[in-house]
């Protein structure tokens, strides 16, 4: 049956064409909530329809479970015989995959996708058979109960207490078309009661539990959700891949390593091109080494931009902490199952490489097993050798200096005591204690100051000549230098350790935050809730105030804020709007409208900007620290995806609702129509039968029949009117040949028009008109009916098409009394009749229907008296948009 066109679903024929081009077959899965919902039945029905439409369909394997209805549907379908597999003295039957491959149908129906094959079959699982069929370019339709999905297995088991052993990897569904076969739980339970449902053994034991209404409702929701998910995943994928259809090879992935260097942007673009060409997913990864923590703001911004670009181009983005770039990259590539790795190689000096080794060389030497390596030259040399700068650290705290110097003093006193006993000559070593402590706890500067103080004290109190600062013995100069050296060395070591610890902490916190954030977002299904959660979570993670603005009827408006209500000044709004319109950050810390207290970042999904996220701080510091920028962008990317998902879900729900309402209205109309027409049909038919058996009463019977036919027409008109008023006209537009359409209508109306001379004048070159053929036919029928009612019998009725400046007019001309002055509009009203014109009966609905139908098709209809003769002229006007010229011959 023709459902109204679903704007979200592409033309199925286009898909079929696209699929035919692909070498791999397409999988369609009939997904159900539980056994007995009718998946197999549905699949066979559609299969039969497909076969009737000319597709080469065979049945690979179908379990009827003894259901008669299902078995009936198998009739007329070609069934590939099953193969028998001997197992422990039994003969088990499985799909004969070789026979199907040899038969090479266009489409094969394979029941129970999650089925486990008998031992000794080629594959353990039926879905592996299906993969092989798909690989061979054969389309496969299959069926599946939602609890067999691997990812849902636990969830289902948790409430049904039935665990199924046969599971299906989720990825099978990712590239498949899904059709949910759905019946209400009550109906399913009723079917079960009637013994119409085959119950698998495992479920049989827990029958009472499994088929409870609450379980079935939950399963049903799971099935519907999973289908919705698959649809939006596929849609996102589609958008992301810039309208490239096709299946992703599940195991291939391109990984590109980026750093804070500008050339990273080029690497990202290269990876994207590489991935697109092979239709595989890709990831941009940044390895956070200790060095990363010391990047300056400009570098951080560049890194964030590179990662953001990757997200925008449809890649996944990851940031991985590791000891070294090489280790991190190797591990990540292995975990992500990368098949291709894109890296840049900078033109560094040979000296640099000798000291640090080349990552590329190391990767080539075998760290990247089985991976293709793409190395791109990068022109920009690494800017500064920051890795070898001293950790100057902060100036240190007053407390630090006091503690260190106090300790130096204490050591000096202790030294004096020990020295007075006279046994130890070289006391320099005890000063290591304050120096090491100061350097490791308080940093380099405090360490050096302590080192200097220690040297002075040692020199002054212990080195002869004592109580002077002169050093006579050169050995003592060495002691002083060693103390200073220790201060520097220890402080560097300690600083690095501290940095590592901080970095590990930060990245752990960040990945926790990200993971928690992602988990949180997937659970949300209402847009308001999502907006609030985005603000609260990002605000909390980055420690600031957050707002979310999204476009509405009144432009960009505040949708949520955290921690409390936020007030945005004019300036802030200007920055927000700028960020939204230009899809770039604005406000404090960006390049634009920096006077605002807020920093606004666009939230985008794919190419569309969905809203703007703003951050500020109460303590007047910059809203986002440069090193937090990558985190912010990654959170915003996730937020964008979630917003898009929810928007799509809402759209789909609305669509379902509209369609449901529409369906109800149509159902109501057709049932009323059926109820009215059936008695009429019986009546008219019976009269015809009587006429044959009672020729004597022919006159009377003809009269009754005439009345019945009028009643029938009137009922038809009434229903049409109801349709117009309910807005339930679903036009399909196709090119219609006016000459042909007029001829068909005249043929239909031969009886009504029998008293008239009817002439159709449609010039041969009159273009086709784009209309709904049914509605157009009824317009013509009613116009001719009207002409027959009001025209003078015996005179002519003419249908005349001619070109005008604005398109084409189709005139219906009669030779009757014409239309009274001023009535030209009114006659198109419902139940309008011209005074004294009811001599031939008529509902007064005909012209109203003409007008309603014409409007539904976008045509105009008008009435006037003829200029050339007596009589009325009714004109259907087609403007240029409704015309389609004949092709040149």
């Amino acid at each position, binding site marked *: 049956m023709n459902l109204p066109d679903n704007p979200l679903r592409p033309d199925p024929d286009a898909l079929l064409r696209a699929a035919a081009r692909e070498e791999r077959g397409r999988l369609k899965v009939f997904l159900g909530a539980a056994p007995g919902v009718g998946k197999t039945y549905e699949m066979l029905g559609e299969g039969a329809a497909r076969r009737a439409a000319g597709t080469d369909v065979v049945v690979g394997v179908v379990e009827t479970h003894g259901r008669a209805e299902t078995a009936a549907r198998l009739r007329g379908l070609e069934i590939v015989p099953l193969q028998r597999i001997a197992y422990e003295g039994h003969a088990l039957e499985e799909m004969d995959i070789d026979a199907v491959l040899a038969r090479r149908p266009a489409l094969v129906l394979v029941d129970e996708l999650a089925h486990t094959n008998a031992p000794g079959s080629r594959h353990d699982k039926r879905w592996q058979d299906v993969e092989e069929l798909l690989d061979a370019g054969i389309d496969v339709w299959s069926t599946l109960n939602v609890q067999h999905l691997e990812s849902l297995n636990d969830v289902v088991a948790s409430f049904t207490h039935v665990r199924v052993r046969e599971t299906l990897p989720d990825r099978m569904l990712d590239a498949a078309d899904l059709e949910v076969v759905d019946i209400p739980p009550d109906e399913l339970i009723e079917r079960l009661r009637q013994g119409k449902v085959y119950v698998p053994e495992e479920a049989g034991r827990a029958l009472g539990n499994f088929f409870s209404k609450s379980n079935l409702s939950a399963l049903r929701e799971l099935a519907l959700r999973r289908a919705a998910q698959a649809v939006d995943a596929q849609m996102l994928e589609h958008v992301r891949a810039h309208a490239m259809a096709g299946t992703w090879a599940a195991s291939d992935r391109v990984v590109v390593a980026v750093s804070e260097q500008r050339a990273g942007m080029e690497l990202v673009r290269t990876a994207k091109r590489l991935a697109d060409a092979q239709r595989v997913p890709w990831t941009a990864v940044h390895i956070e080494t200790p060095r990363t923590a010391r990047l300056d703001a400009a570098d951080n911004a560049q890194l964030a931009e590179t990662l953001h670009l990757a997200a925008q181009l449809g890649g996944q983005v990851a940031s991985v902490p590791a000891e070294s770039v090489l280790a991190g990259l190797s591990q990540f590539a292995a975990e992500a199952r990368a098949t291709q790795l894109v890296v840049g190689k900078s033109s560094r000096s040979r000296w640099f490489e000798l000291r640090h080794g080349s990552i590329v060389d190391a990767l080539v030497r075998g760290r990247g097993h089985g991976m293709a390596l793409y190395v791109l030259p990068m022109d920009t040399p690494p800017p500064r050798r920051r890795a070898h700068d001293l950790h100057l650290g902060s100036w240190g705290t007053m407390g630090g200096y006091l503690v260190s110097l106090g300790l130096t003093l204490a050591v000096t006193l202790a030294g004096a005591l020990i020295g007075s006993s006279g046994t130890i000559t070289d006391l320099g070593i005890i000063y290591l204690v304050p120096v090491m402590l100061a350097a490791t706890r308080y940093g380099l500067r405090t360490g050096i100051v302590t080192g200097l103080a220690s040297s002075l004290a040692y020199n002054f109190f212990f080195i002869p000549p004592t109580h002077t600062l002169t050093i006579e013995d050169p050995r003592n100069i060495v002691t002083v230098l060693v103390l200073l050296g220790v201060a520097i060395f220890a402080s560097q070591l300690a600083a690095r350790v501290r940095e590592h610890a901080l970095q590990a902490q930060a990245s752990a916190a960040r990945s926790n935050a990200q993971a928690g954030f992602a988990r949180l977002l997937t659970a949300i299904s209402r847009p308001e809730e999502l907006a609030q959660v985005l603000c609260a979570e990002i605000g909390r993670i980055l420690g600031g105030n957050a707002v979310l603005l999204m476009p509405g009827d009144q432009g960009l408006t505040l949708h949520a804020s955290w921690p409390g209500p936020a007030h945005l000044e004019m300036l802030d709004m200007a920055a927000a709007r700028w960020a939204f319109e230009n899809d770039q950050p604005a406000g404090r810390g960006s390049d634009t409208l920096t006077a605002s207290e807020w920093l606004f970042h666009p939230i985008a999904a794919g190419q569309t900007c969905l809203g703007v996220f703003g951050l500020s701080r109460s303590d007047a510091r910059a809203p986002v620290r440069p090193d937090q920028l990558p985190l912010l962008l990654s959170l915003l990317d996730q937020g964008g995806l979630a917003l898009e998902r929810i928007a799509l879900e809402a759209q789909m729900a609305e669509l379902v609702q509209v369609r449901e309402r529409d369906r109800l209205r149509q159902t109501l109309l057709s049932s009323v129509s059926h109820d009215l027409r059936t008695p009429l049909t019986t009546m008219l038919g019976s009269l*015809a039968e009587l006429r044959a058996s009672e020729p004597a009463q022919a006159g009377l019977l003809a009269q009754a029949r005439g009345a019945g036919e009028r009643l*029938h027409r009137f009922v038809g008109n009434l229903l049409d009117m109801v349709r117009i008023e309910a807005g339930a006209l679903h036009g399909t537009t196709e090119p219609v040949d006016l000459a042909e359409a007029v001829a068909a209508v005249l043929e239909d109306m031969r009886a009504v028009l029998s008293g008239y001379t009817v002439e159709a004048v449609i010039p041969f070159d009159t273009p086709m008109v784009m209309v709904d053929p049914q509605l157009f036919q009824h317009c013509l029928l009613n116009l001719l009916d009207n002409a027959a009612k009001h025209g003078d019998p015996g005179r002519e009725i003419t249908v005349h098409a001619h070109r005008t400046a604005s398109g084409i007019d189709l005139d219906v001309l009669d030779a009757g009394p014409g239309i009274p002055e001023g009535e030209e509009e009114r006659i198109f009203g419902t139940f309008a009749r011209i005074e004294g014109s009811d001599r031939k009966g008529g509902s007064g609905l005909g012209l109203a229907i003409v007008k309603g139908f014409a409007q539904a098709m976008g045509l105009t209809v008008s009435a006037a008296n003829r200029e050339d003769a007596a009589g009325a002229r009714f004109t259907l006007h087609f403007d240029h948009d409704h015309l389609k010229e004949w092709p040149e011959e």
Partner: protein
Amino acid sequence: MSANPVTVLIVDDEPAIRRLFHAGLTRAGYRVVEAATAREAMAALDIDKPEVVLLDLGLPDRDGLELIPLMAGRTAVLVVSARDETAQKIAALDLGADDYVAKPFDSEEVLARIRTALRRRLPEGPAGQQVRVGAVEIDLMARAVRKAGTEVHLTPKEYGFLAELARNPGRVITHAQLLRAVWGPGHDDDVEYLRVAARGVRRKLEDKPSEPILLRNEPGVGYRLTMGD
């Protein structure tokens, strides 16, 4: 006919309609079997082996459309439908129904449709190769079309269009079926191709193209080749 009457199965849940068909068909010499539900219909199909089924699509236990693929091929299926159910008509024809009859129907009309459907189901004789409508003769073997004995040149698409109709004389062939048969898959929506072909055929074969006799257009559904009766 009396020795071995043709069996017609009436599938309709309205007893009144069944009685009506029954009367008319019996009088015309057919053996009539009735079914009120899809289940009964499928049983009758196996037991009574009707040559023709008159199928109402609104059945209590199942959508009548679902029965069509199961019946088509074993028997001729005539669908009984109301006039404003175009989508159903198309679906029925695409699923393999032979024809449809609009409610309220005329008994004579129904009988004529049954005769046409039965004629098509006769084993292939010479008529299967040559189809004659009025003065026009379509030779499917020689791929030639003659009017009053004179060969008329049609373009390949025009011939393909006409031949597809001639293979099923009197039967409505849907737009999609025609397009698929003549233009191949992927053209299901290109109705204008059909309009162009139909116009060409009419211009070359009809006496008065404005009053076509040969080709009958079923608005929004398809075309049929008019039969002589």
